[in-house]
């Protein structure tokens, strides 16, 4: 719990107060951002920018002390969105579909858990071989050559199999979302 005077001092630029806030909040914020950008360098940059922006809002009394973390997550999403816009102009493709500031703030943790359950459920419906290939290639991060060696397949076969596994997973997730939407509609 961060005391009210710490927020005030941080807004005034007091390094000790800023450090207190960073130490108390950086990890969940960093994890949240990492989940969106999927690489450490960007996650560190966006985390830093988020604190600087949040403190500037605090100086103008525009940052709530209650649900401070939720507020920072929303700020970070706006930063990611701005970066995406800039990078898009430079021809870089970044996923934007998952970025929805309205989702964040208080309910984000629940959303993240629900999304994880949804994903794990869909993964469980894949064939054993498809699950293994996605686990080795994406979750454990093995190269195509290493995965091929572990599974006794050619590299070409690994590429084809991971392509098919992701197609199947994508379809399962679409179906699940459709069902959920239908379920919500019938209530």
């Amino acid at each position, binding site marked *: 719990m961060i005391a009210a005077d710490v927020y005030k001092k941080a807004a005034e*630029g*007091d*390094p000790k107060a*800023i*450090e207190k*806030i*960073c*130490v108390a909040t*950086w*990890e969940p914020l*960093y*994890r949240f951002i*990492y*989940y969106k950008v*999927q*690489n*450490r*360098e*960007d*996650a*560190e940059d966006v*985390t*830093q920018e988020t*604190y*600087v922006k949040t*403190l*500037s809002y605090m100086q103008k009394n525009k940052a709530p002390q209650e649900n401070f973390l939720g507020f920072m997550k929303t700020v970070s999403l706006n930063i990611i969105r701005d970066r995406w816009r800039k990078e898009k102009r*430079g*021809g*870089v*493709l*970044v*996923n934007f*579909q*998952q970025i929805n500031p309205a989702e964040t703030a208080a309910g984000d943790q629940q959303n993240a858990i629900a*999304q*994880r359950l949804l*994903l*794990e459920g869909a*993964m469980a419906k894949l064939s054993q071989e498809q699950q293994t290939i*996605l686990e080795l*290639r*994406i*979750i*454990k*991060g093995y*190269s*195509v050559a290493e995965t091929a060696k572990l599974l006794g397949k050619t590299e070409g076969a*690994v*590429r*084809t199999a*991971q*392509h098919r596994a*992701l*197609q199947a*997973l*994508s379809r399962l*997730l679409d179906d699940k979302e459709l069902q959920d939407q239908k379920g919500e509609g019938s209530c």
Partner: protein
Amino acid sequence: MSKNSAEEKLSNYIDALNNEQHSETADTANDPELEKLLATARLVRSLREPVMPEDGYPQKLARTVAGEVQKARQNGQAAKSKPKSVKGILPAMAALAAGLLIFVLVNWLGPFNQDVVYAMEKAVTQLSNYHGILEMRTKNAVGEEWLVRQVELWAEDDKYAIRQDDGTLIINNGRQKWQISHNDREVALLPLLPDHTRNNFDLRDEAKRAKQYPHTIVGSELIAGRQATKLAISPPGGMEYYLWVDIETNLPIQLQTAMQNALQTTYTFVSFKPNTEIDPQIFTYQVPQGYRVVENEPGQLVATVEEAAAISGVTPLLPEKAPIRILAFQDRIIFDYGDTTITETMPKGDFEPAANASLGVAAGGPLEVWWDRLRWRQNGLEIQVEGVQRLELAGQIAPDLTVPNSNQDLVSKAQVKVSVDKELVEADQKQVDRGSSPWQLDPLQVSLTFVNLKVTPEGIQGEPEIPMSSYKVVANNSAEAVVEVGHGPIERVYLKRLVRQDETGIWSVVGYDPR
């Protein structure tokens, strides 16, 4: 798109994710099916534990954030403290012109050209700090090599520290600059003047030069234990030199000059750690016990323009943009913008532009354009703007600012044309590059020699008949110049920089007007 290429692209994309790289590799060519698969791969990857930052990250984060907040507050205060009477409204046209100029330059230089030089420029921009040991070695024409100097460097934002061979430390922490000499047991407080060049191998300058001049990749070598790409860089009309760029960090790690005067110098970062942990104590001003302090007009960091005016006795002219820092000295004020500085002083004597400078117009008078420096007089002040934002900031102070146009024809109206031997000029340029005959860089000296040789064709003996005080540069657009001669058989001399049209290019007489 074929199925194979989609599989390949998806696989490459997964590799990029696994290697913690950005998703630039994902060229989906607007294929919604492939985009969906990439999104699904990212979703699967979210089941993996994030790669966490290094130990001490929250403290480092807090320090950086505190620094940024402080900087923003200073900017805000400086902006608020600006007296309205000092400056008018931002000249929108100047800003628009500057914007257009940047747009044109950026496109001309090819920002999307993802080569080594572009990656280096990007890496230099993203460099937040570094610690390294820079070695300077010299080799003579017979291949003998020796170590000239080795310095240890720490740099972070605008702060830096340099430890020389003899242990002398020079430190600039942005608020103070001092030198600790252990031999003399002395701490000398130095003027807090922004200095853009801290050593002879400035990473930012080298990245800029490499981008500016034609360059080719000539190989890959191991330098101080790091694999590096070797670039050959060829300044127009100059001698080729080499730059090695670290493959891992994309930062320059070695520079080798061309062999000049039978000597060739190599600067190498024998140790280099970019974006590392630097002990903040290194930038803290401390006088070791038993050392005496010597003060050399260190200047003062002030918060407001009024404060600066009271200390310096100078009533400054301010651009619209607020500076990061304001420094006040007894007779001058410096506005520091990080990469650019504005110095305003009470003028002494007549305004005399450097003989080799090009000439423009500012505040209705002459504007000296010399390398990346602009200098002129306005409202009883001498103003000098130096650095990358010089045009934008100077234009905000002097709305009529006009830089010389190097395409403007100055020499074709010469009544008598002088033919020039291109090969001879190129050889002369190389001589000057090696440090010989520097007078050829000065249009006044070149004119003096030309005119006096017309008067005394057998050669100049002793004092020239028509002395230097008779010559005046009346136009110089950096490519061409006109010099007026007070008396004698020639009234005007027309000159051109035939090899290179910057401050390192020699002048040649291409015509004259007889009196």
